[in-house]
């Protein structure tokens, strides 16, 4: 099992989710987050006072997948989340030791 954490542009979220559904991914957890990498923020001006907003709104998608689905999922995200501009986000992969379905105590890939 692998966990995919993808931090993407909010404007791409709809397409990414659709593409993931199309390849049969049924579960994910989504959070509205703020952060920045190399992308610089923008300035906002309120009554003449300038504020640099460097933590920009992003969407974070988390999903734990059986190994067989991982490559497909990555390809789907890469294809749909990319605008080619700075600030498109990042994907992190990590190995997952165990998954448990709370309702019936199923374990491993059955629990996904």
């Amino acid at each position: 099992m692998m966990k995919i954490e993808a931090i993407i542009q909010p404007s791409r979220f709809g397409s990414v989710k659709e593409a993931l559904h199309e390849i049969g991914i049924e579960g994910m957890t989504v959070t509205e987050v703020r952060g920045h990498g190399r992308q610089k923020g923008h300035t906002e001006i309120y009554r003449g006072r300038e504020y640099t907003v460097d933590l920009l709104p992003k969407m974070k998608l988390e999903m734990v997948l059986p190994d067989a689905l991982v490559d497909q999922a990555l390809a789907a995200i890469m294809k749909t989340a990319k605008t080619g501009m700075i600030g498109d986000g990042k994907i992190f992969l990590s190995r997952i030791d165990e998954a448990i379905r709370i309702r019936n105590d199923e374990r491993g890939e059955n629990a996904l």
Partner: protein
Amino acid sequence: MKRRCLLLLALSIFAVVPLALFSATASFGQSATPTDFSKATSSEKLSQLDQRVTAAQSSADNAWMLVSAALVLMMTGPGLALFYGGLVRRKNTLAIMLQSFALMALITVMWALVGYSLCFGGNGSVIGGFEHALLRGVGAEPNADYAGTIPQTTFMVYQLMFAIITPALITGATAERMKFSGSVLFMMLWFLVVYAPLAHMVWGKGGFLNAALGGRFPTLDFAGGTVVHISSGVSALVCALYLRKRSGYPQQPMPPHSLVLSFIGACLLWVGWFGFNAGSALASNGLASSAFVATHFAAAAAALAWSAAEWFKNGRASALGAISGAVAGLVAITPAAGFVGPMPALAIGMVAGAFCYWMVTKVKAIFQYDDALDAFGVHGAGGTIGALLTGVFAQQAINPIYGAGKPVGGLDGHWGQVGNQLVGVLIAWGFALVGTIVLLKIVDMITGLRVSTEEEEAGLDITQHGEEAYNLEA
């Protein structure tokens, strides 16, 4: 426990009854029914007709004045409460809104006890007397000195709404760091020591700045440029300096938490201002229409001027800029509303929009005072420029306040009026300045003024009131 509640209830009734009896002299009696019109002699008919005409005018004026009173209350809550509420950080939303609301309750009670009398009772040159304390003698009969066609009760409640919003304006400067207890005590004292005398000097019978009733230095102030905006704006500046900056200002960003709230608030202020300015005609007449129009045009011109200044400076016009400009224009036209036509109103609005933009963005940055929500930059500055421009633009064609054929403002041929305006402005500035410093010292000794740094960090909503504006777990 129950018994103690009952006891308290009984005690409070005993306390209120004598007060009520004491002031029961106010009469709301109807005039005697006239004899049958068809059987009356012609002279009786004439006098009856006369009564009926008077009654009809009184009804019309009273209807408009009651609506105006309600409009002016709407400026404080929700208008100002939303306008300020959106401009603070989210942890201080309820605290700033409650300060406006608390004044709606607090000033109302004080007004009934002594406030109205101190402003409009007696004929002292600086302050009124206790003639109308507990609203004695304030009933359905008009008070001919102030508004001869409406019940004095209406005049009384209309003026009350002005006394509510004026201290509420100051809370914009003390936002996000003043103790609630200190704020309540300060506002009570400020109303008695600064507002009441100023209102009497400018509007009260015998007041030495009163233009309508022959004061020594007749200052034109139609709806409260000096009494409301200069007094609150200048006091706001003093408060901001005395309280010092919010911790983290100006290094830490403190952007408004919801410009949507501020936007709604500003639009309510604009609408409410028709009651404030057009209502100050104290009748439903041509002067009210003229003031209504001047008010609206000045607000529009100022919104454009502030936006244009921003567009020129930053390359973009902003929502906060547009609404701030409109408020600045409304402030500046307040003293002039009943003295100028639409074209001078546009000019006053233009000047005020640009001037307040400069005050808020440049002057505040140079002197580094933390007037958190720009109560001074908009009300103090806008009120001052408006009061002076009133002296320039006032026209006898709109309001022959000095008698028919006598020029009123500078362009009318009476440049001395600008000097009179200057006297009024200086007195309002001086009075607000000194009064506020003294009161801040006193309140600082009794309750303290500023919350601790920890409380400021946590926010005033939680530390002063034990609640939050936005509960994520609810």
